[in-house]
């Protein structure tokens, strides 16, 4: 352990067998940002993007969302900046950062009058994002937490463009997404949030919106570093099979692919303090003669209010041996995360199978995911998966409202990393 965050590398095994075949080794790269920085929390620079398409009038979604934004406006301090943009067929800036600084109650009245904006009734999310990004850029500073907060209930016309926008700006602006109702495109909203390591929330009960907003705000206040990423340089012969974010949320990172120099970049985005943050790499190791070998070197890079482009290093070394006895047990801490990531992956495979109409396969995969959550002792996830499996058996699809709700609940539960208690973590890290 070294550096400010204790960035370190842990392999699933320290000793591996010198056999004649390729084999898999799991590599966990983990860190934990320290508490509040010397200068206190980062001032915010938020771009709130609000979907005002026709369907937002169902279940009073727009009313709840408006209340939540007004709550947020009240919580902002004198150093924070925020803008509010609404979109439907067109985008309109409802409140600029100056409006908010000058007169909060006027901004709140503008939010109340949001349904009178003449912007049509469609869902042109990319337009809303572009307008909000332009507003954020006006107050952009590396010493602020620059974030887009996107609230939508719908499918947009230009998914690809929305995702590209989130990816293109991710080093400067992170993007949290909130799906309201059950008809939204959760895959798109998840991927947009994952692109910059920000949060995805789903809201199936409009009444929970204010609570989720205050959680998001609390998260924003705890951000200790921005634009965090891990750069991994693989040693010759080592290959990457898959990369996952393993904590605080679990999801695959599909665009982390080694370049010709075997360098691989894993975006972590904004990192909250006191929470373990990690990436799990599934590596394929080649056969070798016995001896010690460095599998990979890793660098954690991040910005804090005090300093930009801070770097900490870690390396992963294993010993190839011919002695089966010397291999010993796998690292329990790493394997626990491997289990959690694997179960989340099986659930995603089940979802894909169901989406392509293969309900049998989906049900079987869910069965294996349930076996996994039971082994992990994650009761909440087991319940969510069992409900989903029952619903799928009953309706033979995922298209009913009940099935979709079960699916979103199961997803949200499996994405959240269950942390081992600190004592067992300490054991695992002991040299």
């Amino acid at each position: 352990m070294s550096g400010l965050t204790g960035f370190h590398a842990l392999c699933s095994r320290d000793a591996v067998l010198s056999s004649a075949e390729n084999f898999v080794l799991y590599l966990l790269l983990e860190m934990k940002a320290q508490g509040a920085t010397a200068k206190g929390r980062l001032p915010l620079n938020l771009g709130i993007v609000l979907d005002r398409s026709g369907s937002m009038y169902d279940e009073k979604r727009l009313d709840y969302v408006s209340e939540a934004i007004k709550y947020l406006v009240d919580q902002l301090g004198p150093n924070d900046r925020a803008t509010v943009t609404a979109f439907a067929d067109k985008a309109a800036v409802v409140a600029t950062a100056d409006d908010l600084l000058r007169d909060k109650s006027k901004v709140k009245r503008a939010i109340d009058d949001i349904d009178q904006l003449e912007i049509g009734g469609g869902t042109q999310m990319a337009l809303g994002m572009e307008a909000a990004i332009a507003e954020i850029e006006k107050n952009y500073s590396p010493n602020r937490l620059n974030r887009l907060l996107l609230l939508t209930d719908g499918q947009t016309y230009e998914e690809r463009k929305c995702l590209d926008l989130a990816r293109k700006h991710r080093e400067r602006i992170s993007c949290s997404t909130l799906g309201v109702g059950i008809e939204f495109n959760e895959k798109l909203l998840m991927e947009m949030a994952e692109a910059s390591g920000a949060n995805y929330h789903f809201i199936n009960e409009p009444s929970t919106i204010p609570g989720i907003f205050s959680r998001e705000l609390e998260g924003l206040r705890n951000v200790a570093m921005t634009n965090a990423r891990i750069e991994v340089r693989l040693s010759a012969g080592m290959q990457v099979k898959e990369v996952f974010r393993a904590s605080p949320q679990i999801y695959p990172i599909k665009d982390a692919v080694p370049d010709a120099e075997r360098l691989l970049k894993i975006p972590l985005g904004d990192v909250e303090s006191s929470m373990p943050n990690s990436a799990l790499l599934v590596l394929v190791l080649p056969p070798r003669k016995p001896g010690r070998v460095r599998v990979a070197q890793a660098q954690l890079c991040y910005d804090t209010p005090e300093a930009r482009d801070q770097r900490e290093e870690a390396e992963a070394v294993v010993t190839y041996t011919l002695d089966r006895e010397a291999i010993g047990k796998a690292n329990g801490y790493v394997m626990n995360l491997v289990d959690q990531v694997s179960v989340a992956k099986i659930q995603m495979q089940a979802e894909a199978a169901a989406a392509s109409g293969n309900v049998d396969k989906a049900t079987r995969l869910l069965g294996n995911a349930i076996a996994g959550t039971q082994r992990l002792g994650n009761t909440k996830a087991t319940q969510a998966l069992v409900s989903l499996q029952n619903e799928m058996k009953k309706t033979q699809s995922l298209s009913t409202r009940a099935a979709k709700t079960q699916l979103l609940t199961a997803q949200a539960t499996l994405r959240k990393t269950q942390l081992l208690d600190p004592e067992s973590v300490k054991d695992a890290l002991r040299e």
Partner: protein
Amino acid sequence: MIRCSECSHENMDGLEYCDACGAKLPAGASAEPVPAAPAAAPVDAPEPSPPAEASVPTEEPSTGATATVATPVPVSVPTPSAGTVQNAQLTILRGGTVGKVFPLQVGDNLVGRWDPDSGSFPEVDMEHDDPEARISRKHALIRVSDRITIEDIGSLNGTFVNRGRRLEPGSPAEVKDGDEIIVGKTFFKVSVG
């Protein structure tokens, strides 16, 4: 390999969960340790340039000699014999990120596209430079020993050296510094040293 007891899928040693069905795999690697006799250890010697037996493309890119490339923590790696070609590389000339360099390792280098599902982990990975997918997942094999050869391993769109005839799968052709290789629709230059 570890065979999944539920779906019989063959999984790579060390995997915890079956890639196909997600069932928990039995612990422990099935592979036997390599006996001390060096003959069986593929790390020991890059195979000599391919004779006729190469006509059957191997399922996995042979990792045979990848370990002979110097790594940051040196282990007992055999030094390449005096005549081994060092510092060979491919540079994209056209049809991809022009100027992108792929260093070639001593031993086998798979040219193809990254695809974990079919077990394709190429050294020369064209995943990001071949949007039209003209390059097969396992397209060609470049072998670096005391000379450099390229062999088409059953690609769809073919492999060409210096704009000559399409290479027959299983018949490696020798390439030298300055030669041009066409793989799918991408042009590479070979350089040495």
